[in-house]
């Protein structure tokens, strides 16, 4: 799999990271060598191997669905870079 600039631009778009030309170039170079390294896995036949889904020997626990906190609006808003007393503020999304 070769990585070209268009692919990097596409993935950056998906990841919501803006890149200038220079950064796109250097990331294209880095990711090409990293994927070459990763693709060593292709020499291994894994056709009948079950993928690992959990590293624990026990199943994940589920908890009872009950409210044990709440009324922490102020704490939740506290670290927001832009807010008012009730809400997070985002740039306008509808005209």
């Amino acid at each position, binding site marked *: 799999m070769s990585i070209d600039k268009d692919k990097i631009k596409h993935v950056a778009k998906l*990841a919501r990271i803006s890149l200038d030309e220079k950064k796109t170039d250097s990331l294209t170079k880095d990711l090409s060598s990293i*994927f070459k390294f990763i693709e060593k896995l292709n020499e*291994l036949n894994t056709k009948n191997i079950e993928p690992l889904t959990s590293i624990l020997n026990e199943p994940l626990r589920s908890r009872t669905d009950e409210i044990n906190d709440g009324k922490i609006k102020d704490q939740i808003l506290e670290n927001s870079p832009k807010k008012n007393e009730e809400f997070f503020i985002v740039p306008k999304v509808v005209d």
Partner: protein
Amino acid sequence: MTDITKKSLAQIVKAIKGKEISSTEVTAAFIKNIEKSKKLNAFITTCSDEAMKNAKEFDKNQKLDSLLPGVPIAVKDLFCTKSIKTTAGSKMLENFIPTYESTITKNLWSEGAFLLGKLNCDEYAMGSSNETSFYGNVINPIADQTVPGGSSGGSASALVADLTPATIGTDTGGSIRQPASFTGTVGLKPTYGLCSRWGIVAFASSLDQAGPMTKTVEDCALMLEAMATFDKKDSTSIKKKKENYFKNLKDDIKGIKIGIPKEYRVDNMPKEIEILWENGKKILKDAGAKIVDISLNHTKYALPAYYIVAPAEASSNLARYDGIKYGYRSSKGSNLIEMYENTRSEGFGDEVKRRILIGTYVLSSGYYDAYYLKAQKVRKLIKEDFDESFKNVDAILTPSTPSSAFKIGEKKDDPISMYLNDIFTVPANLAGIPAISIPSGKDKKDFPLGLQLIGKPLDEQKLLNIALAIEKRSGFKQSLKRWWEN
């Protein structure tokens, strides 16, 4: 009393319990060292005033029946600490002040310890040299212009420079063990699920695990005992009886079987690492252990599989940094999407971007089976290799790293050569099993080298016991001439 900051954690605890020294005296001594050691850049935030206040409070009404009474402890800046800035080494969280406390730090404080400061680390724990931190390089006290390893580089540097009696780090692919090896200290990555991940800034959730970093194996047992609890707030936390690692520590390892995996003898392995490994075998044999050759067939695929799984999970975890709920927000952009893109472009450093892009790519439509699924299959094979080996041996001995500490800048421009640092440490993360690095020798530059012991799930006690046997017999000594002090 001689310089208290040079003592082990267990010795400090003993001195406080025996009322030979007060918490205030201990804390003041560490703060004095911290103030003289700014050159190391080990701290992102110091909490000297709060620590002194806590120490005085402790001394007024000494409660001594806990594991860490009156002990000041600095922690990696990846653990959320209530009302104390927590940056994860990133510009993104430069002004983030958690409104809650991580379970692990809470556990330390409920055993009588209190916070001394927050330690530098690679950005979001992504790095092996502490060079990706937004807050600058950390210097390894063993030599100027040398990296302390990473990502828990500030933790390792602060520990060996006597700026904290013990510390905690996190280990996703080697981030505790590699810096421990580079600084001549002890570092343990516990079994996945033994220490709660709640309140730790997430990197790769199926691999992340917190663990102790200490000057001695005994201290490591003491810290682990304080840290490991069942936590219902972490759905992967293992429910089990609390163990007395400290009290049950003993170096009697007669009859224990140690596996030597031939696949860890990598190409171009430096002679010094070979000698270190041979010496480790000899030490354990002399202590009564049996050495067995074993094979971990899929070892060479561990690092490539890791560089799919870890970035994939990171790209999902780091999707939360959107400039809205908390963290940095760019002032540029005329709509929501542009605000997201600029925030993430300006807030994340190069290595974090690299990994988010790798992760986004391997999870993107049409590529999932070829990369992520493939990697999880390989991960299964790696785990089965270990399961099979542990039918015949109690633990596995390997070097911790393929080299000693390197120079700042030496590997910065070559991601692959940086990633290769973790070649011996990554398999234990992929398999979720415990592993410890013990300082065991030095290279010709007089830089420390570590040996790694890998154990069965939840077999930390045995690992610590074997580690103690190595520590007692290796003759490793390090005395640093505090050259970095002003």
